């Protein structure tokens, strides 16, 4: 069989670029790459920073338990983003909505539980200064994983790139907040809702926008 039966324009395009390619690694392996970066960042922060002052008074399920839950859910979201990036393997729209809503719900519920169980507000939490501090820490911790996830997403061919970006942004921040939850001395609910959950929303929006820009550039270049 030859390429003769194929229209000329297509045949020439194929003939001019037919070098072998290496297939994309499976989703779980690419997720592990993002998780490795996440683990290095979070472990280095945990090694240097001191735990929240009310750590001993919080029940185990709320301190380390919620942290592990957030970490696991963050990794799951990163995996979903990378799965969404592969054509023909995208996750159903309903599952995307559930994942995004659960990412926010996890943040909010952890915040509410912490404010209820924490014996005292150990720092004034309504101020902007501690909030900006938390947002900065969250950004610094989430950014490497977020960038790695987006890079892995865009190396595939996401057909709903904004959706993949949104899931990647949510995953990176929820996982990073697993450590912030162990460090942040402010248990005030408004602080957690505005600044911690706000960081998740901001990264989801950035991921969505990055996906939209990528999609426009990718398909504009299309012949």
């Amino acid at each position, binding site marked *: 069989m030859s390429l003769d039966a194929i229209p000329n324009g297509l045949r020439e395009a194929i003939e001019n670029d*037919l070098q072998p390619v290496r*297939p994309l690694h499976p989703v779980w392996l690419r997720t592990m790459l993002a998780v490795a970066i996440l683990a290095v960042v979070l472990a280095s922060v945990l090694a240097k920073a001191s735990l929240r002052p009310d750590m001993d008074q919080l029940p185990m399920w709320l301190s380390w338990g919620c942290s592990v839950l957030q970490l696991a859910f963050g990794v799951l979201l990163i995996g979903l983003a990378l799965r969404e990036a592969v054509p023909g393997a995208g996750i159903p729209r309903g599952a995307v909505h559930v994942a995004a809503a659960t990412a926010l719900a996890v943040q909010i519920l952890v915040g509410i539980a912490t404010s209820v169980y924490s014996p005292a507000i150990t720092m004034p939490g309504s101020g902007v200064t501690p909030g900006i501090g938390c947002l900065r820490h969250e950004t610094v911790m989430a950014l490497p994983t977020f960038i790695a996830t987006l890079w892995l997403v865009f190396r595939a061919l996401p057909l709903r790139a904004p959706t993949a970006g949104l899931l990647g942004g949510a995953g990176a921040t929820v996982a990073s907040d697993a450590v912030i939850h162990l460090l942040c001395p402010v248990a005030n609910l408004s602080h957690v809702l505005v600044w911690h959950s706000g960081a998740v929303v901001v990264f989801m929006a950035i991921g969505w926008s990055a996906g939209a820009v990528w999609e426009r550039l990718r398909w504009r270049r299309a012949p």
Partner: protein
Amino acid sequence: MAVDRHAEEQQLIALMIAYQKGDADAFSGLYEALKRPLIRYLWTFVRNQTTAEDLLQESFLQLHRARQTYTPPRPVRPWVYAITRHVALMHLRTMRRRKEIMPDEDLPEVPVPPEMDQLADRATVQRLLGALPRAAQEVLILHHLLGMSFEEVGAIVGISPGTAKVRAHRALKKVRQRVIEEGA
């Protein structure tokens, strides 16, 4: 039939692996195996023979550019159809932006799935199918005409297999109802 489908899928996987290794004949094999069903599928989006053929070429160019994103031994068809679908949707988006409309005389015959052939005469079924929303037509064509499983249809369209099944069932029911109404 199921054995044939499995053998066909295995053949597509083998061709895809060879294509990723730079085999031009493998690309020809894929083109031959997929061009007809892809054209049928593209008709649900554009209903214009020339445009469908242009989109088919563009789809194969996109498949070529994205060939490393196929991971063996996953099924080839959901990967191919998902990219083709996206090419068609991007085309429709561009058309909408430019406010271009296809002339009516360019509308081709809507392919009729075998299950629907006995519902009424072919022209009636085609007309009723053509009147269905595109999302319903798409699921019907993929499942009933191109023989995809609802899992594959869901993966291509970005919905759950259950939703794909419900969508196909409702579309068939709607066509049947219209046939009965018109018969009455």
